[in-house]
């Protein structure tokens, strides 16, 4: 039986090497997948306006607003952020602006 990991599994994998029942023998392998390229609008934070109230963090569907060990939010994780804009709309201080994503 094969227990290959996502980083080694691609369209060349043979039937002998594929994991049994396509079980995924690891956690969180989707972190290899960029979903940031879905974005048309991009959230940008104005740190001068941010009061670290953290109301933006729980509303993110894509775990793209990290809260660091010091209890303060960091910059967006643009690798995952799909640009839905819930955070910007939730911020009571207007500290997050949605801008056209130039890529």
């Amino acid at each position: 039986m094969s227990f290959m990991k996502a980083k080694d599994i691609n369209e060349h994998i043979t039937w002998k090497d594929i994991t049994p029942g396509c079980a995924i023998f690891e956690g969180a392998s989707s972190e290899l997948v960029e979903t940031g390229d879905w974005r048309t609008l991009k959230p940008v934070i104005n740190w001068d306006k941010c009061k670290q109230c953290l109301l933006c963090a729980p509303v993110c569907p894509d775990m793209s607003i990290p809260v660091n060990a010091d209890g303060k939010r960091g910059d967006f994780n643009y690798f995952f952020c799909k640009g839905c804009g819930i955070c910007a709309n939730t911020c009571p201080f207007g500290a997050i602006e949605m801008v056209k994503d130039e890529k």
Partner: protein
Amino acid sequence: MSYNLKENLLREERLAGGHRMCAGCGSPIAVRTVLRQVEPGDHAIVCNATGCLEVSTSVYPYTSWKGSWIHNAFENAGATLSGVETAYRALKKRGKLDDTYKFIAFGGDGGTYDIGFQSLSGAMERGHDLVYVCYDNEAYMNTGIQRSSSTPHFADTTTTPAGKVIPGKLQQKKNLTKIMVAHNVPYVAQTTFIGNFKDISEKAHKAIYTPGAAFLNVMAPCPRGWRYPTEKLMEVTKAAVETCVWPLYEVIDGKYILSYKPKNKLPVEEYLKMQGRFAHMFKPGNEWMIEEVQKEVDRNWEELLQLCGE
């Protein structure tokens, strides 16, 4: 311990990025919030009914679940997780396991109110020590917005299109939360995303740590199916609560407790007007539809107030 958003956000995140849910989807917000309430050191086994959440978080070989996860089919998350929880008891009894595991099922309203209803009812009746979380987005979204028994009255879906003769869904939304209460399980709650997430976080923690079967019904809006701009999610849930369309309450050992009573209960239009699925109700001549929904909401609210002794 009183709720603190910062403390809560510092807890372990058990859902990973890179999932393929639509931008602005409510269900991953529900999932990550519920899973954050699992205490550090405890393991959470998640069982998923087939649906948007399941397909989008498990596209082989990419899983968005940090801990172990099992998907079986559309209609049997309740039974499948019953089996897992029973296995846990069997292994514990035989001294093969030491750690503490928590068992959490996530199903959409289709997999919960409809096709998975029997399996859910069985799991609740048997009293397995698990939590079933319904992320209720009020239609079969994964197959393209077909009506479910959770779809609200008059909503425009692809199988209840607002037509010239039939104006959307003709039936009211099924009250599943009350049906779950009727199973005499120790904990049932209805919640959604509000403010600093205190309501949903506390209810999820209680549901997970109350011994026995628990049911959590989370309104999890679908911007695609409800037809509102993705960024408005928190405005939609707030309006649902302020109009009493989706009241927040919990039932502990059969006792109803109201979680929130709006100071000024807003008219249902405030909720309906935000969403394209209700747009036809605002056309001239269709005022009766809004009036009817208002009557239904008022009746349900009054009944709930009575049950809660308010």
